[in-house]
């Protein structure tokens, strides 16, 4: 069955540095991958979507890469700020295109940016 892995340990980085979060998947060839941000006590918020034919996607200080050979996506936040502290979730669609809008979420990685 499909499996999504995100580092369950919190990532602590210093303000101004680049944060890199990893999403690995197995037994799977998704057509796209999404990244969401979740703050405590709130629902996830969509950040970026990257398709299988795209190597890289950028939005302001965010960059996502998608390596279908390694079965891995990397999520980068450049010039990180304390306000970037949150849990970041990757989400993938099912292998069955009949339920294409259904997403399976990873467990998320908590990012803590300190001054």
């Amino acid at each position, binding site marked *: 069955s499909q499996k*999504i892995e995100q580092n*369950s340990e919190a990532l602590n980085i210093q303000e101004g540095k680049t944060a890199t979060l990893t999403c690995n998947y197995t037994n799977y060839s998704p*057509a*796209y991958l*999404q990244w969401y941000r979740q703050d405590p*006590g*709130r*629902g*996830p*918020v*969509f950040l970026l*979507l990257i*398709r299988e034919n795209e190597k890289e996607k950028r939005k302001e200080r965010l960059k996502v890469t998608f390596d279908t050979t390694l079965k891995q996506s990397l999520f980068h936040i450049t010039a990180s700020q304390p306000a970037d502290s949150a849990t970041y*979730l990757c*989400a993938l*669609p099912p292998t069955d*295109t009949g*339920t*294409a*809008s*259904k*997403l*399976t*979420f*990873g*467990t*998320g990685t908590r990012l803590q940016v300190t001054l």
Partner: protein
Amino acid sequence: EAGVAQSPRYKIIEKRQSVAFWCNPISGHATLYWYQQILGQGPKLLIQFQNNGVVDDSQLPKDRFSAERLKGVDSTLKIQPAKLEDSAVYLCASSLVSLAGADTQYFGPGTRLTVL
């Protein structure tokens, strides 16, 4: 544009009691999802509606959970009877259309359920 609304925000019940959650999606969004998020885990899809029809309820524990979306707008999720392991945040999300491509899902704030 108003976001996805959910109520109540918090609920504490004893095991074997019943509970219901309400969700009002973003206006015009045809697809509605209910997720269960246990502490430390990612959201897990319970049920997906397209208008007022069920698209996927494969992970819904149907012996105790039920959901409906009458008139294709608001939705309710019910648990009867609740178990201790049902303690979680219940998230409602909606998306504009269900395409073979990719939908951006918009989430509500969730209802935190504690079962004692």
